């Protein structure tokens, strides 16, 4: 890990532990509104979680300070990152879930599968067709045919 990556890592950990600390304190406070029997365990958890998060926050703050002191002596070379792949990897799954909600499982899966394959660099139409058909056929046989489970219908088509 380069110095800049270590610094980002430590800042990220500090941020997450601060969020966790706030979250566990909220869990502790919110547990006060439950009945006597139901509040004990969440309160205990909130306390233990908050203590762990506070220790982690302290550790990451110390690490950030130590890195600042020694940053001048470290290499700052970063690694090359293919941003296109990163964007596809984070946007792909939520976008597919959105399509599922709007268009239903079958149409969304045809679009999602074929679209992702093309976006990821597969240009042979027969391969795209074979993968899309094969995957959806096996899902149909497994879930709808064997178990009788109807896959979700889209809100747009239902309306």
């Amino acid at each position, binding site marked *: 890990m380069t110095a800049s990556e270590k610094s980002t890592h430590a800042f990220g950990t500090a941020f997450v532990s601060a969020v966790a600390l706030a979250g566990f304190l909220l869990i502790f406070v919110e547990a006060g509104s439950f009945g006597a029997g139901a509040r004990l365990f969440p309160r205990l958890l909130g306390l233990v979680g908050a203590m762990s998060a506070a220790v*982690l926050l302290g*550790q990451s703050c110390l690490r950030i300070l130590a890195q600042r002191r020694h940053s001048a002596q470290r290499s700052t070379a970063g690694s090359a990152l293919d941003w296109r792949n990163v964007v596809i990897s*984070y946007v792909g799954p939520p976008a597919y*879930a959105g399509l599922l909600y709007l268009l239903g499982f079958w149409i969304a899966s045809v679009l999602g*599968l074929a679209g992702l394959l093309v976006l*990821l660099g597969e240009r042979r139409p027969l391969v795209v067709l074979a993968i899309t058909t094969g995957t959806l056929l096996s899902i149909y046989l*497994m879930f709808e045919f064997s178990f009788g*489970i109807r896959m979700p219908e889209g809100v747009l088509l239902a309306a």
Partner: protein
Amino acid sequence: MLLDSVLLGLSAALTWDRMLVMFVATVLGLVLGAMPGLGPLAAMALLIPFTFTMDPLAAVLGLASISVAANCSGSFSAILLNVPGETASTATCFDGHPMARQGLATVAIGLSIGASFVAAVIGILAVIAVIQPLVSVALAFGPPENAALAAIGIAFVSSLARKSITKGLVMAALGLWLSTVGIDAVNGEPRYTFGLIELQDGIDLVPVMTGLFAVTEIVSWIQERGTISRLGRLEGSVWRGVFDTLRYPVSLVRSTLVGIGVGVIPGVGSVIASFLAYEVERLSSRSPGRFGQGAPEGVIAPEAANNSSISASLAPALALGIPGGATSALLLVALMVHGIRPGSMLLTGHSELLFGFLVGLIIGALMFLLVSVLFARPLALVTLVRAELLAPIFLVLCFAGVYAQDQQFSDILLAIIFGLVGCAAKALDFPPVPLVLGLVVGRLLETSVVQSLAISDGDWTIFFTRPVSGSLLAMAALVIVLTTLRGVRRKAIADPVES
């Protein structure tokens, strides 16, 4: 006595119709268990309607075979894709997937099959030999001991976060909190539901596991490209893995015993057994640094413990009618449908059925060994498929599996949310496994703590004054302290600036 029981069981189980039922159930279980989102429970649910017309022994043998096969094939996806098919297979990912990355997917699957087979056979023989003493030991475990066992499981798993045990504890606390979401099991009060009806039943494991493991893995496939096997080819064979299991007899026996010890306690389950066995193996190893890098013992230990605990959980289920988990509960349902009540009546009045069932499980384990060896190599070829083809297929399969569980769209949203949590956790070295274990044991821990305090009139010393729970809690504290000290020392040596 043992030999008589085995012979009695053999004569009952070795008929063509029962063997055929077991074979079909094994193949079906293998296929269903490998599908994301479908596990032993779904597989058993599919078979149950067909068992109504069978004789009682064929019915329970079919259900047990499908459950064992689906449970074991859940480990295949853990090894090949780093996506555990079942929660109990999560610990198999630690060393199984690194082996797959080194091109040793078939060997890792062989190790998993070999360890599962040996442990299942030893577990079943243990149940046959000592079913009654085992049950009396299990009954000595009360709520304080169960709470302590859950606590030691969490301590062990948090200590697996090598870079920082604090991160492991934060994730475990998050998992425990997630287990409190929904209607409170003790008082029936809704907690942390934010007014959403979908959250009243609590947070299900399938979307959480799919998000944390599958979605996170799919994201990393898209970013890194290439194939899962970094060598680009498969090395070794499945049989090599199966026979390699026997090169680690101490690990195999130790983990099997851990599995039997945990499995016989009703309600604790095979998840804790597999994590405990992994950690016991790592702590007893002369070179613990190999664990997590593809150590064969890291595959053998969780697989052996998982399977022996499932076999051992049959002891309280059959002798007392107390199911150790959901699968043994379904087995009891199948028995009762045929008019057979578990308990002492089963031991005395239906001994042929009981021992026929237990010996049939050994035959089923052998059948699984042979069938899964045939399937293993074709399945392992998935590690040679390019990530850009694999990622879209698994994304669609995973979401279909998540939806199929409860047919709620909200589960897909949960999988996406936990996918993002998993990606952030991976980037910042927060281990996802303590979160999963926290979610799994949360209800057991809460119920046990509340029951213990009710027994002791609110006196917390009950956890420390009882010898078994006191020892287990002391061990949990020791694990946390030792891991913290070891981490501090390692950091001081490796990077004096950051320590």
